């Protein structure tokens, strides 16, 4: 297995506060990693450092072998990133926004048209392509963010809460989409919806207080407590870190 994402000793300090503390893991092609943790645990900070947006205080992150700090453009070319809150330009139409992203990703002419069409189809956005983003509901905006991340069919996908704000049907569609893409890609999704981990992830990392406190398959994690429910395990180890080693 080839590790497409390699994170080693990643640390981020804000003044005296350590948001992410010595986090290391790698993700191979075919893996879907669920990145879990309570609010403020350091999930988004880790993802921002992985995307090259935040400069780590220590440690390195690599995407397809390119260091995100020293080889940023090459690393980002292989990355599809959905930032927290799925930000998009409100005054742009869905289609013009995706065409802009496509142009920066180096597509021109017919290829650009095809890429945009494919991304619109994957995220079922064809019906709203000419609407401005500010007129869309929260679920649609999230899908625009997702479409932008999938446009160039990247080997690495980093999605910060991809199903937040979606209705149950849309959640189902996005999970199906992630499962379909999984064999070809290394995918990291952050979430605090635990059923999502069961539904799509082949592996789960739980982070609390900036540290990794568990790294296993969802089944292994669930079996740590007699109830066999991931939710109970999550609550137990994020509030009682001594259980993490169990």
């Amino acid at each position, binding site marked *: 297995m080839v590790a497409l994402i390699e994170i080693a000793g990643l640390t981020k300090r804000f003044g005296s506060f350590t948001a992410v503390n010595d986090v290391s893991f790698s993700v191979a092609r075919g893996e879907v990693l669920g990145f879990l943790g309570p609010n403020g645990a350091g999930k988004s900070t880790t993802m*921002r450092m992985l995307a*090259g947006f935040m400069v780590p205080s220590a440690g390195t992150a690599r995407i397809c072998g390119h260091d995100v700090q020293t080889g940023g453009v090459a690393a980002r070319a292989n990355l599809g990133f959905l930032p927290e809150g799925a930000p998009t330009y409100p005054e742009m139409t869905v289609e*013009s926004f995706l065409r802009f992203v496509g142009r*920066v990703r180096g597509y021109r002419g017919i290829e650009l048209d095809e890429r945009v069409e494919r991304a619109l189809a994957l995220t079922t956005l064809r019906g709203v392509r000419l609407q401005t983003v500010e007129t869309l509901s929260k679920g649609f905006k999230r899908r625009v963010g997702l479409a932008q991340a999938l446009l160039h069919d990247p080997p690495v996908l980093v999605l910060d809460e991809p199903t937040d704000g979606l209705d149950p049907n849309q959640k189902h569609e996005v999970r199906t989409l992630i499962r379909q893409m999984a064999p070809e890609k290394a995918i990291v999704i952050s979430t605090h919806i635990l059923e999502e981990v069961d539904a799509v992830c082949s592996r789960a990392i739980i982070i609390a207080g900036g540290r990794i406190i568990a790294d296993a398959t969802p089944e292994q994690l669930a079996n740590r407590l007699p109830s066999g429910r991931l939710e109970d395990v999550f609550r137990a180890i994020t509030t009682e870190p001594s259980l993490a080693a169990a």
Partner: protein
Amino acid sequence: MFSVRNTLAVAGRELAGYFATPVAVVFIVIFLVLQGVLTYNLGGFFDRDQADLVPFFGFIPWVFLLLVPAITMRLWAEERRLGTIELLLTLPLRQSEAVVGKFLAAWSFCAIALVLTFPFWITVNVLGSPDNGVIACGYIGALLVAGAFLAIGAAMSALTKNQVIAFVLGLAVCFVFAVASYPVVTDFISTGSPGLAAFARRISVGERFMDFTRGLIELRDLIYFASLIGFFLFLNTILIEHRKAD
């Protein structure tokens, strides 16, 4: 390597953004009304009995001083507030490409506003026979003044996510460059250190612009504007590089 394609993609998106919101219309209307009132009324355009655009160009730096920071205040502050900076800077482009792209968009926008002042030019040509070479020089100078103020304002916008702060900082720094050669300022400085007063005269935008309105295009003035714009775009890139996630 600096990619012109990426720069143009960013510039195109930004420029379309002005026209997708009321920003463009409000700016252009206010600019033309202000220039009209100042030139025809305060400037005594008709009473002078001379076929030139001296009063028109005399007011341009002051109108730009007020309006240009209003264009630049949103350039980066808005991206920070919406979170789209995270999206933009995790695309495979260099920070410098984003900085130059945004600057070019704002500069083209100012150029459009300047082109729309053509009725002034028609007026003097109908009423008399002005030296159109001098007028052309004046327009080139006005465009360079706009570029200098835009570069300053854009760098100030990169400092903050608050548009009001971006506007006030942009206005303040542009003001320093606009008035640096005024006797009030240089007399005040020269009481303390005469050398500094000479320096203040050299960095003044107003002084250089006056050469253009007299029909003089001097190499040192062109170098001055190019260095001023270049310096603030460089500063802008450094600010974005180091404070992108703040």
